[in-house]
């Protein structure tokens, strides 16, 4: 389809969905509802007792409930549900001797067995809906790649395409009816805010109470806000209506998402010392993790971009689940870059290094004496816009604040004459950019030669870069970012290590 025609249809579909809204069909699922009640009780108990004994059981039960919600295909096609049920039973058996609430464990075991004894009514609903419209005029959208594979085995024989939401995005707009399997709020907002079809329906079990639709992030403040409405219809055995009424207050609906065990983590309650940084743990595909500090931007990969424009930098605070990071084992890229930039300086090297060390030492001294928050406050008072990053500026490999103005004000505040420090830092930054640009070109070449569809499927991939003599570059998808900052040794930041906590994620 010609790009202008396709685009016209997209604008029209978006406007049409704004007028007509999307449909949510909820069907009673007593067995799923029983499981949901058991999991909610478990979550309350685990919340009361704090991290520890319940963690693995909680994760396994969450995963089981999530798969009941998002993979309604018959058991014969549902290895994911069978695995999750087995894991929940294993974890329940493991804690049996250690806990007092046997009744809850029995409820969990009985629910985990029950989902293996009864097909999800959502699957039946989906089949009937497809038959009504005709298989040739439907597209089924799965919550994620795992769910897609499961449903594909089942619906493939009927020639109904099963896609993930990014795969749907790549199709030309059409008149097809889209059936999305699972609660709207867990899908990318594009499914309703940038639809490729005029008709979108979601199928869910009634026990999932939250029927809100995803919105675009600016809609709350926007003129012409794209806020799509939902028409909800309910059918089947609905005595399992949403459990919110009469039940103890439950945690947020986000508890439905499979979650990693972050382990016992407490906010440090002190500021990092000079050889330390605060960092969040980031779980990565391929059984890896890194400690990500709030320092220099990190190298990322965007698979949706055309060749030559895939490798880029991203601010640390913008790293989210789904981002791809490019990491090297054993050493951070910024360390290597900094060394190369210093080398490129040639005979100006000593002067630049001395000047950088001078202002960074003085900053370090202020941070040590006044503390991070007081320094931030004082710098804000002096007009420094990005004052909250003051800790990062003391790092040796971070050349200077991005903004010229902020750097000048920082030097003033430190009592250091702007020149020649400013000019020398600028020279170093130029060299750094030069080195960075050369590495980016190499990375682009390596990425172009790689099988990116495999990377999208698997979530991670090693990259070959013989020309630069780099070993062990890995591209890997972010699975989860820890909500808690911890203090770690500076030299541990951004170095990938093996980590099992991601095993409860899909």
């Amino acid at each position, binding site marked *: 389809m010609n*790009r202008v025609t396709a685009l016209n249809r997209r*604008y029209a579909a978006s406007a049409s969905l704004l007028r007509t809204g999307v449909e949510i069909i909820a069907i009673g699922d007593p067995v799923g509802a029983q499981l949901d009640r058991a999991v909610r009780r478990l979550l309350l108990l685990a919340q009361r007792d704090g991290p520890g004994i319940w963690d693995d059981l909680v994760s396994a039960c969450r995963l089981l409930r999530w798969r009941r919600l998002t993979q309604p295909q018959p058991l014969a096609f549902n290895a994911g549900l069978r695995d999750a049920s087995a894991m929940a039973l294993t974890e329940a058996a493991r804690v049996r001797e250690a806990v007092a609430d046997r009744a809850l464990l029995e409820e969990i075991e009985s629910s985990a067995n029950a989902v293996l004894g009864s097909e999800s009514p959502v699957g039946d609903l989906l089949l009937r809906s497809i038959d009504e419209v005709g298989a040739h005029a439907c597209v089924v959208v799965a919550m994620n790649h795992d769910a897609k594979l499961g449903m594909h085995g089942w619906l493939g024989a009927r020639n109904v395409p099963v896609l993930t939401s990014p795969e749907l995005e790549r199709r030309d707009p059409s008149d097809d009816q889209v059936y999305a399997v699972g609660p709207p709020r867990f899908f990318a907002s594009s499914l309703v805010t*940038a639809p490729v079809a005029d008709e979108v329906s979601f199928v869910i079990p009634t026990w999932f109470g939250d029927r809100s639709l995803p919105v675009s*992030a600016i809609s709350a*403040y926007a003129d*012409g806000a794209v806020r799509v409405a939902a028409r909800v219809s309910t059918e089947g055995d609905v005595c399992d209506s949403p459990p919110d009424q009469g039940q103890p207050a439950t945690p947020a609906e986000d508890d439905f998402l499979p979650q990693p065990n972050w382990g016992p983590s407490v906010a440090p309650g002190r500021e990092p010392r000079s050889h330390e940084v605060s960092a969040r743990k980031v779980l990565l595909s391929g059984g890896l993790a890194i400690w990500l500090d709030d320092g220099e931007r990190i190298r990322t990969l965007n698979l949706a*971009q055309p060749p030559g424009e895939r490798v880029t930098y991203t601010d640390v605070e913008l790293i989210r689940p789904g981002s791809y990071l490019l990491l090297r084992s054993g050493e951070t890229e910024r360390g290597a870059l900094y060394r190369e930039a210093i080398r490129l300086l040639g005979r100006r090297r000593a002067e630049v290094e001395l000047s950088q060390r001078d202002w960074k030492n003085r900053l370090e001294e202020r941070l040590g004496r006044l503390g991070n928050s007081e320094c931030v406050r004082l710098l804000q008072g002096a007009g420094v816009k990005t004052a909250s990053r003051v800790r990062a500026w003391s790092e040796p490999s971070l050349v200077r604040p991005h903004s010229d103005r902020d750097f000048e004000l920082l030097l003033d505040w430190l009592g250091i004459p702007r020149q020649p420090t400013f000019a020398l830092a600028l020279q170093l930054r130029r060299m750094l950019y030069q080195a960075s640009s050369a590495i980016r070109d190499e990375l682009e070449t390596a990425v172009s030669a790689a099988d990116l569809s495999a990377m999208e499927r698997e979530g991670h991939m090693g990259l070959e870069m013989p020309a630069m003599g780099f070993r062990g570059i890995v591209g890997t998808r972010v699975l989860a970012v820890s909500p808690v900052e911890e203090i770690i040794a500076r030299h541990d930041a951004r170095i990938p290590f093996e980590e099992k906590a991601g095993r409860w994620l899909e």
Partner: protein
Amino acid sequence: LRTLPDRTAYIDAWDSMVSKSEGENIQLALLESGTGEFELAPWIGPLVALGGMALKYASSLSGRQLVVAASVPSRDFAAALVGCGWIIASQPPRLDPPMEVLRTIERNVPVRIVTDSAVIEDVFLAVDEGEQPEIALRGSRWLASKVRAVSPLANLDRSVRSPRPGVGSIARWARLESSWDQRLASSRQELAIVGTRTWINADLGAFLVAEPDATRRGAGTTVTTADEIGGLLLVSNEGAATSFTRVYAASRIAEQLPLPADVQAAVLDGTGSIKFLTEVEAPVVFCIIDRSVADQTAAELIVQLRNTRGEPLMLGGDLGWRAPPGVEALAYTVAL
């Protein structure tokens, strides 16, 4: 439209026209390749108008930056169309007549000269006065009577000679003809488009015309390069001796900031470039949010800046712009 005296009035008129019912809108049409049929669409005109209206509003900014974010179902063409609105509404450069300029320029200064048929960037040597005065450049000589506009350049890597870009449908419709020579000659880079370069270049190669032209040409007609969006935007690239717009790859922008001080407006097309929003210091910044992309961090960043440092504006009340179906937008100013 034909009776309108100048561009500002034209933008004013358009302003009121786009806020009327859809049927009365002036429609613009796009065509992706050189042959085929133009497609009229109700969203094209408003995106162009957004660029123009933001420029008009920007004249009232004092020391503040205007941020306009538009979220569209898919990013295609949006950045280029907003850019078209900007150039349409922009003041033409004020250049003195060619001979006056040349008489003040010293030998060996690089210049750009616009003739009846070409735009040339070369080193100026001398004006040979005589019955038919001639302008001597390092690589060529030109009859002064054929030279329509001249401006000195700050620097020149190598001399360039390109065919003179024609006045296309939109430029005619927006009455840019009378200042076209000055616009070609001016070395100011006013507009930066930052995003996925491959995609933006494809957008710039598409043809944009006003409704009467689209209808008249019908199916199967060929179009001229003058109607290319890139031609209207006077994009600077290899082999083109124009400067108004420059395209930057978002993947490399970290190493190219800050943008040149001349830049009056930056269009940040997609997450890859919007994440540099706080480091772009142009007086006006447009952000194009592609809703078909699952990554919504760009939109979050825009909202965060609005809520922490911004003073919100009403697109309808302050800018006089109304979002077409399928587009949502917000605007605010921040201290520079």
